[in-house]
Structure formats: structure tokens, C-alpha cells
């Protein structure tokens, strides 16, 4: 890898004298005033022209312009007051900028400039950025602000079921989303069976989601990339924020280790339902559930050229049930799962135009389910099941900005995965002790990429790139080139046409029985028998800005074809493991089947990121079909989350600095599920009358041929902010599902005996999770 980097550097260096003729580079870092937090994606441009760039993930920008006595540069970012600087450009110039935040995402006009993050200016399409401040204003279930649930309110992004943080992007499954927190992959982003996501908004700096037209720097998943960056920590003074909610409390503290040079951030969250219910449980039983999160980050600024960041996330869910009776019966059952990630990053600035980052990445997800029973006769049963994945990765990225026409990125990411698909111990007094340990599977996944965002003339931009992906597993090696292209043509001022194409490959797969994000879902690699999943997506769209109203409108159509996607065979479930013998037959490779998928649709998004009244209106019209040779007798069927219509309306109104009102309304076509239609006795051919009886079976019709009732819900919230001597406090009162719509979570059949005519009547019962859920929370900042 070092050799490749050297060659790349040599090539670039050899070009520098040519490129630099009569041109000079302005470069530097954009930070938040007061905290020195580096800002990502700040627009840096020459007002009145299309010449510009944006700050990268580490707040660095570089713009090379012709020499001039006076150059005007504007810096603009949502939620911050824009800045304009005039400089003399006769030599390479370092220009570090501090932007002042606006407390309430106000519209700010400065003579000669405007909010510049225009969707019509960017070549990237199918991209969603939600300011973290806005996420905190959207009403949430039980007041728990959730990044993933806000993303679900965007067109093309759908939730799985009620209250669930699983994400379905353009027909793809929740495993097809690459969720990266500070460069580390997060494998299970759910707490409490998916009702809450891992991400604590107080610790986050930015959230960005890409659902199509993927740049070459991203790879490894078919449907989306959700990139989250943790705050670096305030370099000037100690600050904190926290909150007390109905189910959890949280606290974040950040501050300088060495003023202006080094800082830290620690953020924690824990639920306390288990502590509250403890006194109400019978003495024989102890049961409960809790989760916690801990985000930490430390960074050190060695000056303009070198910066170092260490960040980590640790989270755990624990569900337990212990019973002990006087007669000697004892049971102990539990489910534990959790993620841990760690990243060490080193930024290095080779020169004004060449920025590098090296990352050492660790990520782990582990799931454990156990059940132990002992009865009075000392008969014993024990089941202990463990599965997980562990990654160690090295990443090296270069940003090269030779001139305003080109922004070149290249890099390599190599990850060593260790999968533990299942390790099981079953002990039973009836049979001999049985131990089964599936050996770990070690694999390496590597991606090398290069991409260029090129602007040959002012109206036209393109991002072209290639990613070469390699996956090596015992006895098999997969090599997959992935071409990527995005183009944008500005038809009129503030109106662009966009198109994109991307091939994606996915070498790790999630086996999910329920699709609701249970921790039982199992990560497995591609193997000799299981080929990588692959998708090809084309998207066409229009982007229009209405600068006077601060509105942006995007309309996109997409078509995605996926191959080798993974599904469970009919009747398969890892939870079938019931005893030693069944455990022997449960092998994940035998339980899965490969198929193909088709997704297509149109998305409409009208968004206002700033102003007293902000929010968005999203609508998606989509179709998703799947086909597996061994499911539904090989016939195509609608995916469970095929959703014809999906609407979301999000409004945030801030009449004054003391009050924030917000409301969300969502509507979605019901999920496609398989429901029993009829039953009958299916005679089987049994040669011996000894076994002849036939089996009472259920007829379902085609797979997923039944539609659940449509889902809709209205949430509202009101926040009261007050400045205090020590900082600011906010009371929030909110209501989830204000009109108490009984949305179906699942259906089941229930038979009832009718004594009047001795018949049996079967009814369809619907289980709904949440009626109106009011909540109140208190949060503070100091």
C-alpha cells in the first residue's frame, strides 16, 4: 500500500509545476466559532461565479485560482452565518475561517451572498443531508431523538415496521446500508429490537446519506451509505449537554485538553426501565432490559499539517429473565448484544492541494442468546448461542485539488473480517452433552478507488470513478470492478438535470428472519457457495433551487436491479435449534438461497433547511419485487417492504428563540405479508399404515400476497427554550401518534369456540404497538 501511495504522490507531484503556472492556492480549515469544531461540507466559492469547492470531512478546503490583486471568497454553511473574505492572491495563501452558528437555523442574508448549498450546484444526486440541529427538533417516540428515524422520513427511505429504526432504501434490505461512524462500520445499529438506534445525537456532528449515484469512495453495500461523524470536542472551553427522558438519560461533556490544540468528548446514554420495574416483580423472578451507549473522542492538532483523532463507540443491550422457585426449578434466559467501534485517524497535509487521511479501524458486533434450566430432579438443559463479526481495517484516502475544475479523490480500504456465524453449546440430561463450534471464517475485503469531480465548463459537472473490489475467502477469491458515474447539467440558473449510474457489490450478508432488526440477525460472508450480492442502479433527476424562499426541490426516478441477493429458504430459521440433533442440521449455508430483485420508482422532495419555518415534504412512488428459485415456487413476488406510496411531511416552526413547534405526518402503503387463507389435511404417501395420517396444513396463496393496512401517524412536539445563567435548558412536550391510529404491527388468527352451535370461528386479530404516547423531556446545555 505504501508503494502505491508513493507512486500516486510522485505522479501528482510531477504535475504540480505545470498546473501551478500563474495560479495560486488558497487553502485552510473551516471551523465553528467558539468551539473550533471542524465543519464538513462548507461551500467555499467566488460569489457570482460557479467557481467553488467544499470543505472535506476534516474541514479542509483548497481552491486554486489565477493570480489577482483582489479575490473575494464566500464561505457558507447551513445554520451558520456566511462569511466573505477579500484577499490578495499573489502567493499560496492559508486562510482559516471560523463560522458563527445561528441558534435557530435562521435565514441570513449578507450583502453579496446567500445560502449557497444549492442542490442544483452539486453533481451528486440521491443524497440527503439533515442538519443535526434539525434532527433534534423533529418529534420522536418517547422523546428519544433518533437520527435513523429522521432519515426514514426522507423519500426513498422507508421504515420496516412501527417504531423500528431499520432502514429500507430504494427497495433494499436493512443489511444493504453501509452505516459508518467515524470510518468504522456499524453492523447492528439498533437498540431494543430496533425501536431505538445507536446514535446519540448529542455526540454527532454530521449525518449524510447517499442512496444512489454512489461516488467511488463508497463500496461494500448495495443500497445506501449513511455516514455519521462524531463531534471532535470543544477546543476552547468545557461544555456539556444532556437530557432526562422517560426511558433514558444522557450526558455529553466536551472540552479542551490543551486549549486550541487538543480536545475530548465523552457522551453516554442509558435506559432505566429495568431499575423502575424491579420493585414490582415477584420475588421468584428477575427480569429486565437496558441498553447503554458510550461515545468518546480525543483529538490532537499538531498544527496545519498533522492532526490526530481517536474515537470509539461502545454499546450493549441486555435482556434477562431469571426465575428461581422454592421447589428447586430454576431458569436463566437472556439475550445480549452490542457493538464496539474504534478509529484512529491521522490527517496529513502534503501541500496546499493534497490532503491525506489514514485510518486504523476496529469494529465488532456480538450477539449471545442463552437459556439454562434446572428442575427439582436435577435434570438440566443448557443452550448457549453466540454469533458475531469483528473487523480490523486500514484506510488511506487522498484528496487532490489541482484546480477548481478538478477534485480528485483516491484511496484504499482493506478490512480483515472475522465472522463467527454461530457457536453453540447444547447440554441436555436426556442426551449426552453436545458441543458444536462452527469455526471462525476469516476473510479480507479490499477496495481501491479513484474518482474525479470534473467541471469542463460552468454548466456541466461530472463525477466519474472506478472502484476495484476484492474479497478473499478460503478457497475462493472474488474480484469486482465497479464503475461509477454522475453527471449534472445546469439548464437554467438554479435548475439542473442530473443522471447517475453505479454498480455496487456486497460481500457480507445479513440473514434476517423477521426483517425487524432483531439481534438474532446473523452476519455471514460470501463464500465459495455464496456469491457476492450485486446491484446496478440508474437514476435520473431534476434539481431546482428557489433561493428567495430558501427552498430546494428534487425529483428523481430510479431503477435498480440486484443479483445474488440472499434470503432464507422456506421453513428456515436459526431459531429452529431446539436440541442437539436439530442443531446439527442447521447450517446457515444450507438455509439460505440466492435470488434477484427489481426496484424502481420516483421520489419527490421539497425541502427548506433554514428559516423560521423549515422542514420538508417527501413523496415516494415505488415498486420492489424479488425472485428466488426456491421461494414462492420460483415466481416473482413483492418484497415485504414494497411500498407503493410513502408520504412524509415534516414542519418545524420557530416563532421566537424561546419556542420551537414541530409536527410530522407520515403515510405508507401497508407491508406485503404472507397470511393464511385456508387449511386442509394434506395426505402424504406413507407406505406403512402405522404412520399414515396426513398433515394439517395451511394454504397461504402466493408469498407476500396480502397487504397490511396502510400506516399513518401524526406526531407533534413543542420545545420551550430558556437561557439560564449557566447555559440553556429546554423542556419538550411531545405526542407520538397524536390521533392514536392503530397501525398494524402484525396480524394473527385466533379461534374461538361458539357454545351455541358448537362451531369454531376464526378471527383476524391485529396487534398495534403504540397508541398516542405523550412524553416529556428535559434537556440542557452549558
Amino acid at each position, binding site marked *: 500500500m505504501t508503494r502505491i501511495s508513493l507512486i500516486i504522490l510522485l505522479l501528482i507531484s510531477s504535475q504540480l509545476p505545470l498546473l501551478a503556472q500563474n495560479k495560486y492556492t488558497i487553502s485552510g480549515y473551516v471551523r465553528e466559532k467558539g468551539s473550533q469544531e471542524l465543519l464538513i461540507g462548507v461551500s467555499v466559492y467566488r460569489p457570482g461565479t460557479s467557481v467553488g469547492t467544499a470543505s472535506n470531512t476534516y474541514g479542509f478546503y483548497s481552491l486554486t485560482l489565477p493570480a489577482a490583486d483582489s479575490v473575494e471568497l464566500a464561505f457558507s454553511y447551513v445554520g451558520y452565518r456566511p462569511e466573505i473574505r477579500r484577499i490578495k492572491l499573489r502567493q499560496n495563501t492559508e486562510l482559516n475561517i471560523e463560522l458563527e452558528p445561528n441558534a435557530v437555523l435562521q435565514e441570513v442574508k449578507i450583502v453579496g451572498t446567500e445560502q449557497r448549498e444549492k442542490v442544483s450546484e452539486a453533481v451528486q444526486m440521491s443524497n440527503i443531508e439533515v442538519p443535526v440541529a434539525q434532527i433534534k427538533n423533529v418529534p420522536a417516540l418517547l422523546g428519544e431523538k433518533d437520527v435513523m428515524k429522521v432519515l426514514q422520513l426522507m423519500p426513498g427511505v422507508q421504515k420496516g415496521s412501527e417504531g423500528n429504526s431499520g432502514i429500507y432504501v430504494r427497495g433494499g434490505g436493512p443489511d444493504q446500508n453501509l452505516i459508518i461512524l467515524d470510518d468504522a462500520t456499524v453492523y447492528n445499529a439498533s437498540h431494543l429490537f430496533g425501536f431505538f438506534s445507536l446514535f446519540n445525537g448529542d455526540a454527532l456532528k454530521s449525518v449524510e446519506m447517499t442512496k444512489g449515484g454512489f461516488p467511488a469512495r463508497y463500496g461494500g453495500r448495495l443500497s445506501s451509505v449513511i455516514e455519521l461523524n462524531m463531534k471532535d470536542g470543544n477546543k476552547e472551553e468545557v461544555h456539556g449537554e444532556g437530557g432526562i427522558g422517560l426511558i433514558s438519560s444522557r450526558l455529553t461533556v466536551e472540552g479542551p485538553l490543551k486549549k486550541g490544540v487538543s480536545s475530548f468528548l465523552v457522551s453516554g446514554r442509558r435506559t432505566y426501565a429495568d431499575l423502575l420495574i424491579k420493585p414490582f416483580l415477584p420475588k421468584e423472578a428477575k427480569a429486565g432490559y437496558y441498553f447503554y451507549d458510550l461515545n468518546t473522542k480525543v483529538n490532537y492538532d499538531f498544527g496545519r499539517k498533522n492532526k490526530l483523532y481517536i474515537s470509539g463507540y461502545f454499546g450493549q443491550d441486555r435482556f434477562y429473565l431469571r426465575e428461581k422457585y422454592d421447589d428447586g426449578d430454576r431458569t436463566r434466559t437472556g439475550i445480549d448484544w452490542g457493538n464496539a467501534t474504534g478509529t484512529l485517524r491521522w490527517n496529513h497535509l502534503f501541500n496546499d492541494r493534497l490532503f491525506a487521511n489514514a485510518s486504523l479501524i476496529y469494529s465488532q458486533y456480538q450477539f449471545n442468546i442463552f437459556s439454562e434450566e434446572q428442575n427439582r430432579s436435577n435434570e438440566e438443559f443448557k443452550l448457549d448461542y453466540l454469533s458475531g463479526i469483528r473487523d480490523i481495517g486500514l484506510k488511506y484516502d487522498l484528496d487532490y485539488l489541482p484546480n477548481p475544475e478538478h477534485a480528485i479523490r483516491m484511496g484504499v480500504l482493506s478490512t480483515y473480517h472475522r465472522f463467527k456465524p454461530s457457536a453453540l453449546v447444547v447440554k441436555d440430561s436426556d442426551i449426552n452433552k453436545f458441543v458444536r463450534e462452527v469455526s471462525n471464517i476469516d476473510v479480507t475485503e479490499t477496495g481501491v478507488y479513484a474518482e474525479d469531480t470534473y467541471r469542463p465548463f460552468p454548466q456541466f459537472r461530472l463525477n466519474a470513478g472506478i472502484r476495484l473490489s476484492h474479497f478473499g475467502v478460503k478457497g475462493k477469491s472474488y474480484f469486482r470492478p465497479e464503475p461509477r458515474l454522475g453527471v449534472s447539467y445546469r439548464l437554467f440558473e438554479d435548475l439542473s438535470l442530473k443522471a447517475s449510474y453505479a454498480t455496487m457489490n456486497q460481500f457480507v450478508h445479513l440473514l434476517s428472519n423477521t426483517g425487524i432488526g432483531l439481534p438474532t440477525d446473523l452476519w455471514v460472508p460470501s463464500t465459495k457457495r455464496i456469491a457476492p450480492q450485486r446491484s446496478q442502479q440508474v437514476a435520473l433527476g431534476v434539481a431546482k433551487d428557489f433561493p428567495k424562499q430558501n427552498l430546494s426541490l428534487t425529483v428523481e426516478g430510479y431503477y435498480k436491479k440486484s443479483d445474488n441477493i440472499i434470503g432464507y429458504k422456506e421453513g428456515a430459521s436459526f431459531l429452529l435449534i431446539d436440541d442437539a440433533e436439530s442443531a446439527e442440521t442447521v447450517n446457515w449455508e444450507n438455509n439460505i438461497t440466492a435470488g434477484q430483485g427489481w426496484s424502481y420508482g420516483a421520489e419527490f422532495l421539497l425541502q427548506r433547511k433554514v428559516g423560521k419555518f423549515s422542514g420538508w415534504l417527501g413523496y415516494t412512488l415505488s415498486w420492489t419485487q424479488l425472485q428466488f428459485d426456491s421461494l414462492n415456487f420460483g415466481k416473482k413476488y413483492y418484497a415485504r417492504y414494497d411500498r407503493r406510496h410513502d408520504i412524509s411531511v415534516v414542519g418545524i416552526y420557530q416563532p421566537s428563540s424561546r419556542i420551537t413547534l414541530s409536527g410530522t405526518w407520515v403515510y405508507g402503503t401497508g407491508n406485503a405479508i404472507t397470511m393464511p387463507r385456508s387449511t386442509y389435511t394434506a395426505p402424504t404417501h*406413507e407406505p*406403512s399404515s402405522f404412520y399414515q395420517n396426513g398433515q394439517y396444513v*395451511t*394454504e397461504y396463496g402466493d408469498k407476500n400476497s396480502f397487504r397490511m393496512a396502510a400506516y399513518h401517524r401524526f406526531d407533534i412536539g413543542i420545545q420551550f427554550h430558556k437561557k439560564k445563567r449557566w447555559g440553556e435548558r429546554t423542556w419538550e412536550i411531545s405526542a407520538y401518534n397524536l390521533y392514536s391510529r392503530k397501525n398494524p404491527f402484525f396480524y394473527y388468527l385466533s379461534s374461538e369456540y361458539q357454545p351455541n352451535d358448537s362451531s369454531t370461528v376464526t378471527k383476524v386479530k391485529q396487534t398495534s404497538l403504540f397508541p398516542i404516547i405523550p412524553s416529556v423531556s428535559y434537556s440542557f446545555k452549558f
Partner: protein
Amino acid sequence: MKIQNIYKLLCLGLVLSLGACETDVTKEVNIDTTPKLAVVSFISPQDTVLLVNLQKTQPAVGKAMSREEARVPNATVQLSDGSQTFTLKYEPTPDVYRLSASKLPVLPGKTYYLTVAAPDGYTVSGSCTVPRTEGVRITDITVTNKALDFPGGPTSMEVFSFKWQDAAGQPNYYRTLGGSRESQDPINPNGPPRIEPFYFSSWNDKNKNIYSDEKTDGGLFSSGEGGSQMPASQVPPKPYWLHATLAVTDQHYYRYHRSVYQQADTDGNPFAEPTLIYTNLQGGLGVFAAYNEVKGSKRVE
């Protein structure tokens, strides 16, 4: 079942702790519960009688039909080999339609057609082709003693198994039907031989006694373990004969049985994918399938 604890925990966590509510939505949901006709028939050249089982399906929702209501005694059930068509006769006990195989001989390689017409507009039809058995050969038959660790103390039982050679180059499906031991009757040595059957139970076997050569074309297959109803102390003296019977089945037979057994296995597990029951019939449910027996024998000295 021990695993039920884990289900309990998951369900508790998902539903109870989050304040779920239940509503009767029978009138609001639109489930197509129109009764269908389920027709099941297996034919083979070794049969002396051809049977077709008919029943109406019970709607999954609403009032259950009585056993009488589910019967279809007045249907027209016809079997044909393409040139001759015969109507089957209904027999109330055991509720089947019947035709003597002598009227319509079932021959290997030949395609048969089943049509059913019943009042209320039901029409169901399907066809199947009787598999050939060329190239399929039973290669080994054994009876061994298997030690068992029962709670009452160690014991042993005899298990019967056999092996067979698949016919390469074509898709084949199999069902192990059973076997027998033929020995001299110790009480009446000159009388008829004593026949002791061995049965395979489909419910306990991991392959359910059905096999496909999809991944092992031309390979050697082994049966599951067949059990005898005879106490181990009555094992006859050698020499004796072992006989095995294997059915070479068509694809419909294999897929239908597989789906039925699989659905039974996962019944009640809310986390397993629902299994759809295979059908090769138009206008109804069930299966019309064929098989052809292969026999093998071995003298044990």
C-alpha cells in the same frame, strides 16, 4: 420445548413491555378465504388400485366447516392416459375416489391426466409422468444393532438401512419406502417364511426419507434408519433374506412431500419463513404425482 423460553422472552420484549393493543379486524381485512378443492393422488405401476382424495379447504378465517361439509362426494373424477378416460367411483369410507388399476394400467414413462369437476363450479386438472427406474439399483442392505441410552438403562435396537445407486444424467427423486427380513419360522420350518417389516418414519428422519439428486447426480445414496416392531431378543438365526423397496418418484411427489413435512416442522415458530405447500394442479390445491418402485434383496449368511 426449551426454546420456547427464548420465544417468550422475545415476544414479551416486543409486545408486552411496549404496551401493545389487540383489535379484531376480521371485517376490515380482505383475505380470500373462498374454499378451494384440494386433490391428492399418487399413482404407481405397482398399485392395484388408483385412489384420489378430495376435500374442500377450510377457510382460515370465519366459521369452520364440519367434516361432512368438507367432503366432496358428488364430484366427477376422471383419470386418463391420453387415449382412454375412466371415471372413478366415490367410496364414503374412507372418503376416496377409486379405480381398479387393471382398467388403466400405470406404465413407466407414460403421462396421465387427472380432471376433477365438482358442484359450485370447481374444476381441477393436472398431469404427471411415471418415472422410469433404469440405472437405479439397490446396492447394499444391512441390519445393525444400535445402542440406545434410555433413562431406564442402556438397551439396543435393530436398525435397517440400504444404499442405492442414482441414475446419472437426469434429475431423479426418491422415497425410501421400507424393507423386510424374510427368515425361516423356527416353530414351523417347513411352513411359510416369517416376514418382518422395517418402516421408515418420515417425521423423525432428517431427510424425511425423500431425496433429490440435484447436487449428487450419479452418486450413491443412503437411506435413513428404519425400525422394526420386533423385540431384539427375537432376531432370527442366519441365514435370512433382507429386502428393500425404493420409490423413484417424479418431481411433484418430492416437492409436495418436502413442503408438507417442512411446514409441519416449523409450525408454531413465529420466526421461521412460512412454507408454501407445493401444488402442480390447475384450479385447486394438492398434487397429482407418480412413483415407481425398485426392489433389492440380499442374503445374509
